[in-house]
């Protein structure tokens, strides 16, 4: 099995069956299905950031650039009033995002630590202002997606993107695939080398590995998945706007990753669920919900020093 430890297995067998059943209980209310779909999409984005920061040691505040680009690339590439194929555009968006990441990465990966944070932030802000100041791409208001892509493969269509429940299950499947994909990567020789690079880059170089290329490949991979999440988000709501590229989104994703347990990968799902759960509960409680949110996050971080996943792992270890 691809799961690495008892806690991950426990989480997997609780989360995915519950997530599969969730629309059955929420069938009467499309709003909730749509809401949890957003959480699932965000979890994909946070997972890709968690891999970069927690497993590759690349701290970036510019990951939202790829999330936003995922949406904008679709709007830029697809004809406005024609139906296009979802799979073809998924391929285009992931490949173009990876290519952009390769170019950006050549600059970004020459730095580390605080300088990497600054440079990723600077590049993401450049991208943000490019779209928010561009009349052609909708400026601050963004652009609408009038016709959603069709999903057929060789003439056979298995789901409809306009159907909220179908779209939810598709996003859940994407999240599952991302989890499996990252687990496979981390278990491979490539993943072990990335772990070694995070621990000691000089020592890994002395074993004959070009750490720059390994980091660049990881950066491109995580960026492509980040763009894929942004593409799903744009399809869900039918619009793109510059807030998808904002550094605040990168910051929020970073908090979700830390909450879940940095570098655990599956912790990204927990972090997103808890953060979004708190967000939704508190914003209906008071208009000063951000204050309460801050207090909760401080308390959670103080309580779970290695994140929720880390806490559960130590708890299950003690019990066994």
């Amino acid at each position, binding site marked *: 099995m691809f799961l690495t430890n008892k806690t991950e297995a426990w989480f997997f067998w609780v989360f995915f069956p519950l997530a599969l059943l969730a629309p059955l209980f929420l069938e009467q209310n499309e709003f909730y299905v749509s809401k949890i779909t957003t959480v699932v999409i965000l979890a994909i984005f946070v997972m890709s950031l968690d891999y970069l920061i927690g497993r590759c040691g690349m701290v970036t505040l510019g990951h939202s650039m790829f999330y936003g680009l995922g949406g904008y690339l679709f709007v830029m590439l697809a004809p406005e009033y024609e139906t296009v194929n979802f799979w073809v555009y998924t391929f285009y968006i992931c490949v173009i995002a990876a290519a952009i990441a390769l170019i950006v990465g050549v600059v970004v990966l020459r730095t580390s630590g605080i300088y990497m944070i600054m440079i990723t932030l600077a590049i993401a802000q450049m991208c943000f202002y490019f779209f928010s100041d561009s009349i052609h791409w909708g400026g601050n208001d963004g652009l609408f997606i009038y016709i959603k892509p069709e999903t057929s493969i060789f003439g056979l269509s298995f789901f409809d993107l306009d159907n909220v429940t179908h779209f939810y299950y598709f996003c859940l499947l994407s999240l599952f695939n991302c989890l499996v994909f990252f687990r496979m990567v981390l278990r491979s*020789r490539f993943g*072990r080398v990335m772990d070694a690079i995070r621990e000691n880059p000089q020592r890994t*170089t002395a*074993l004959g590995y070009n750490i720059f290329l390994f980091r660049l490949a990881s950066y491109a991979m995580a960026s492509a998945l980040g763009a894929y999440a942004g593409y799903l988000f744009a399809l869900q709501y039918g619009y793109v706007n510059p807030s998808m590229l904002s550094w605040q989104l990168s910051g929020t994703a970073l908090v979700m990753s830390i909450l879940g347990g940095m570098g655990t990968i599956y912790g990204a799902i927990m972090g997103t669920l808890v953060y979004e759960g708190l967000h939704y509960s508190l914003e209906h409680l008071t208009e000063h919900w951000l204050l309460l949110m801050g207090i909760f996050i401080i308390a959670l971080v103080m309580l779970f020093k290695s994140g929720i996943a880390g806490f559960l792992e130590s708890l299950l270890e003690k019990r066994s």
Partner: protein
Amino acid sequence: MSTHLLEVRGLHTLYGASHILHGVDLCIEPGQAVSLMGRNGMGKTTTLKSLLGVVTPRSGEVSFKGQRLDALPTWQRMRRGIAYVPEGRGMFHNLTVREHLQMANRPNDRGETQWDYDRVLALFPRLGERLDNLGTQLSGGEQQMLAIGRALLTNPDLLILDEATEGLAPLIRKEIWDVIRLIKQSGISTLIVDKNIQVLKTLCDQHVVLVKGRVAFSGNSQQLLENMSEVESYLSV
């Protein structure tokens, strides 16, 4: 064309204003074991770091299998067929024994795989019993075995061992020396940095002694025996 596997000529290395190596020369033939000896602070590790490209020498030439390495980064030099077992064993804290071996395992630059996972575990059966332990949870001797096993899995032509037996119990030390003998017999050239002259004089074919960054003695085992008192004076405190 040179027949040397490794050829180092006139290596001068500085750390800031400190001149550490003063024209070090070193040659290793295919299949040969060479010892590099000297007291602490005489430039042994700096010589290794200079030839691996970890530090950039001010001047001098490093050639491996007839090709100059001077302009290549460390990882490319290692890819040509050099493996390095660092002083202090160089374990990765976040990797298990299995993962250490998995990440290093690759064919050499000719695409040959003389050393694989099973052969390394046959050489170090104790590692086989500790596959799921973190590298840092092993004893000093086991860590050294893992460091050597990891280096062998890159299928090198030259194995460089920096203080391979330092800090180990005598029995474990003997075990490590026996393994190095086996590695030598398998045809891999070795460059061994150590202070144990009694073992090195029988194990190695050539010997180099550094004193204050200069080669004070260079010769084969016969010459070493003939000049033993002089060499011992270079090594004694």
